[in-house]
């Protein structure tokens, strides 16, 4: 009996049962649907075993969108709970679980896969390559990430969600104060997803260093590829810290070690430090690719070269170095003394300088440009002032003496949403809109798109500006309620309304996809935005080999030069193309990881051992496997090319 008890949700409520039933029904519907339409074979052949970077990218995208909605529901629940004083919609334990999962889902399972989608889809196309360096490892990365995501979401219905905040500070996260298995899920699910991210970091760095088209020196790479390169370097340096950290957290919880305990020498602050040694670079991993996307979009629609290419690159390099030496700013109040605080205050404020350089470069790109206000451009132009606001409040928070007032208040919550939403989320949606026609062969509706951008921005301002004020007035974060006398009621209600408006904008985004699938023209050619870099030089839809002939490049905007200045892109003639074979082992191995993770969460040791052996056997199998890929013949390529050219007219 004891054994089975741990699987139950610790304090069930109507909401959780409702979610269980709806998740169950949705799963059933999917399985029945696939069986009914006889799509299992298709799914296995074309998606689960695929090693094509474009398809893997699209799977990342789908996961990200799914998680955006999961995290969004959490957000609305929190805002509703706080919209009135003494509200009883969520009790405090449930509120703890909701803000914890909201944070993790949004950062690790929404924003991360979203940018990884762009890495996957765009890097090979932008550098004129046929795939990433290690296509099969790429599939493994995705499936590990996916299984980590699945495991994490399972916590909600089996055993209970983590409840110690997305930062999971010890001693709050130890067995005494977080007695359910929730925090085990945290440690293990993130570990599995994190290993996937680390592997893809290695993959993308190798790809960018080694597989660029002839003529594309590092300083001729498109700006998004630069940002992706730097972000992935940060991944490779920061994620091992997370790996060690989570392993130690797991041992503290499962094996009774004393890393972060408060007796036998344990040191709880070690967790906080290491968490942010990873955590702060992590936020730059998110924002740098967003900057890269804005650079692409702004230069495309200002119809100008990006202003200050070199300083853009230099500022990103500086940011990436600084991102590793600011972590203490997350706990100025936790007792390291004036000297340490002052040093970290200064390094933190210094990051504003390279960021400012970038802002000015975008403004100078717009200056005298022939601006075309498309939807992606609208997001980018909204991003500049809104993000700057978030940056300014960031500098306020960076002043360690003043931080004693703001720390752990809603002011902080307002700050990071102010940078993450206009910074990362807008970039994701702008990029999605921008690259949608490349992926699917039709454009998203511009009218609905612009409405979405405006509604989202109004919702954003209404939702988060009031938090700055209540935060300064002392409303603490992560508190499930407050009293009438505190005087926060009015502003929190405004914030709830704002959150509702944001929710409407996301619904509109989905509606736009539906609407465009039905009504948008399919006759748009392969370069509907009149864009500048290589990804637009190939057909739409992109053939599996990307480029029939590898392009030759002479500037940062090779495709633009081809269109306007007579640069010849495709000089060679068609030769047979070597492609990797599909493979099922990444998926199978990731399934072992999933079961392994589940068994770890509940300490079912026999299963842990069996699945560990399974993982090792997969690796051994891979070592002995002989697979030299396959060739696409010249004839086949010519046929595909003729067909695609015909479709394009």
């Amino acid at each position, binding site marked *: 009996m004891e054994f089975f008890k741990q699987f139950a949700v610790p304090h069930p409520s109507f909401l959780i049962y409702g979610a269980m039933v709806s998740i169950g029904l949705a799963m059933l519907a999917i399985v029945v649907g696939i069986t009914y339409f006889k799509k299992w074979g298709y799914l296995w052949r074309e998606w689960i075993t695929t090693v094509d970077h474009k398809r893997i990218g699209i799977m990342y995208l789908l996961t990200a969108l799914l998680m955006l909605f999961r995290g969004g529901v959490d957000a609305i629940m929190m805002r509703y709970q706080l919209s009135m004083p003494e509200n009883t919609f969520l009790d405090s334990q449930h509120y703890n679980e909701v803000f914890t999962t909201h944070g993790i889902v949004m950062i690790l399972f929404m924003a991360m896969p979203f940018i990884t989608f762009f890495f996957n889809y765009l890097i090979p196309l932008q550098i004129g390559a046929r795939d990433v360096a290690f296509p099969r490892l790429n599939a493994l990365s995705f499936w590990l990430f996916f299984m980590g995501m699945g495991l994490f979401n399972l916590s909600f219905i089996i055993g209970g969600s983590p409840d110690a905040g997305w930062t999971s500070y010890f001693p709050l996260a130890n067995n005494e104060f977080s007695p359910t298995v929730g925090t085990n899920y945290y440690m293990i699910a993130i570990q599995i997803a994190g290993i996937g991210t680390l592997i893809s970091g290695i993959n993308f760095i190798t790809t960018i260093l080694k597989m660029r088209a002839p003529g594309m020196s590092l300083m001729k790479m498109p700006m998004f590829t630069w940002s992706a390169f730097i972000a992935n370097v940060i991944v490779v340096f920061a994620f091992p810290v997370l790996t060690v950290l989570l392993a130690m957290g797991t041992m503290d919880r499962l094996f009774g070690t*004393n890393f972060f305990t408060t007796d*036998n020498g344990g040191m709880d602050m070690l967790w906080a430090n290491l968490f942010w040694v990873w955590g702060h670079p992590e936020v730059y991993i998110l924002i740098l690719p967003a900057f890269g996307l804005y650079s692409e979009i702004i230069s495309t629609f200002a119809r100008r070269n990006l202003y200050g290419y070199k300083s853009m690159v230099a500022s990103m390099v500086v940011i990436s170095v600084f991102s590793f030496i600011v972590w203490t700013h997350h706990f100025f109040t936790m007792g390291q003394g004036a000297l340490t605080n002052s040093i970290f205050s200064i390094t933190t404020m210094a990051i504003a300088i390279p960021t400012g350089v970038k802002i000015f470069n975008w403004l100078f790109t717009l200056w005298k440009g022939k601006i075309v206000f498309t939807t992606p451009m609208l997001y980018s132009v909204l991003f500049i002032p809104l993000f700057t606001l978030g940056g300014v409040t960031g500098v306020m928070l960076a002043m360690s003496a003043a931080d004693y007032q703001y720390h752990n208040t809603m002011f902080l919550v307002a700050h990071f949403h102010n940078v993450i939403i206009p910074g990362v989320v807008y970039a994701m949606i702008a990029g999605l809109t921008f690259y949608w026609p490349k992926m699917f062969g039709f454009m998203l509706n511009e009218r609905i798109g612009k409405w979405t951008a405006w509604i989202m921005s109004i919702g954003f301002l209404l939702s988060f500006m009031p938090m700055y004020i209540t935060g300064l007035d002392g409303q603490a974060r992560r508190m499930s309620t407050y009293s009438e006398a505190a005087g926060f009621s009015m502003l929190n209600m405004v914030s709830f309304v704002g959150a509702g408006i944001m929710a409407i904008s996301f619904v509109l985004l989905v509606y736009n996809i539906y609407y465009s699938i039905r009504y948008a023209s399919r006759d748009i050619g392969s370069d509907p935005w009149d864009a500048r870099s290589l990804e637009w030089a190939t057909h739409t839809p992109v053939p599996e080999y990307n480029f029939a002939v590898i392009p030759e490049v002479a500037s940062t905007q090779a495709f633009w030069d081809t269109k306007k200045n007579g640069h010849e892109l495709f000089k060679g003639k068609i030769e047979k193309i070597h492609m990797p074979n599909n493979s099922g082992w990444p998926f199978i191995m990731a399934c072992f990881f999933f079961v392994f993770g589940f068994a770890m969460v509940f300490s079912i040791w026999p299963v842990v051992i069996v699945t560990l052996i399974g993982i090792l056997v997969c690796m051994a199998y891979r*070592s002995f496997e002989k697979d030299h890929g396959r060739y696409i013949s010249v004839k086949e390529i010519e046929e595909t090319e003729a067909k695609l050219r015909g479709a394009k007219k």
Partner: protein
Amino acid sequence: MKVDNSLPLEYSTEENSLKILGFWIFLGAEIMLFATLFAVYFTLENRIGNGPSGAEIFEITPVLFETFLLLTSSFVIGLGIHAMRLGNKKATMVFFSITLLLGAGFLGFEIYEFVHYIHIGATLQTSAFTAALLTTLGTHGLHVILGLFWGLFILIQIKKRGLTPETANKSFIFSLYWHFLDIVWIFIFSFIYLKGMM
């Protein structure tokens, strides 16, 4: 597959040189991993709670044996790669086998050491210091175990398939890994054992 004969076998195809670069980057990540473990160890080194300190539990003899075995194995695998470059399959295999045997010897002593620690009451749960110590050593040890299996698989493949661009590439990458473990051990030896005993 295009084979470029002006380069050593392990670099001779494009895929091969991609793999070698990729592995170097992986080693970069591994450096961060061990750097974090060392940082943790140095932070917790003196936080021994009610347990023993390093000076009380470290014993020089097994550690010297371990060091000697691992350093030698790293030298021998260098010979193995040299033989591989000369195209001598048999010598390559012999040197690889010796490497693995030395590695297994290292592991034997390490297991003895762990059993000893547990015997004298320095277990994973005893204190923050013992947890950090055993985790750091254990992570290195796990790498060695994994390396033994990996090396064995490569050995079997060389035996079956000969020295092809593929097996040469795998052997070379494996040798990088093995040297890396050796370097980590030198840090462990100097900054955990020697420093702890002084």
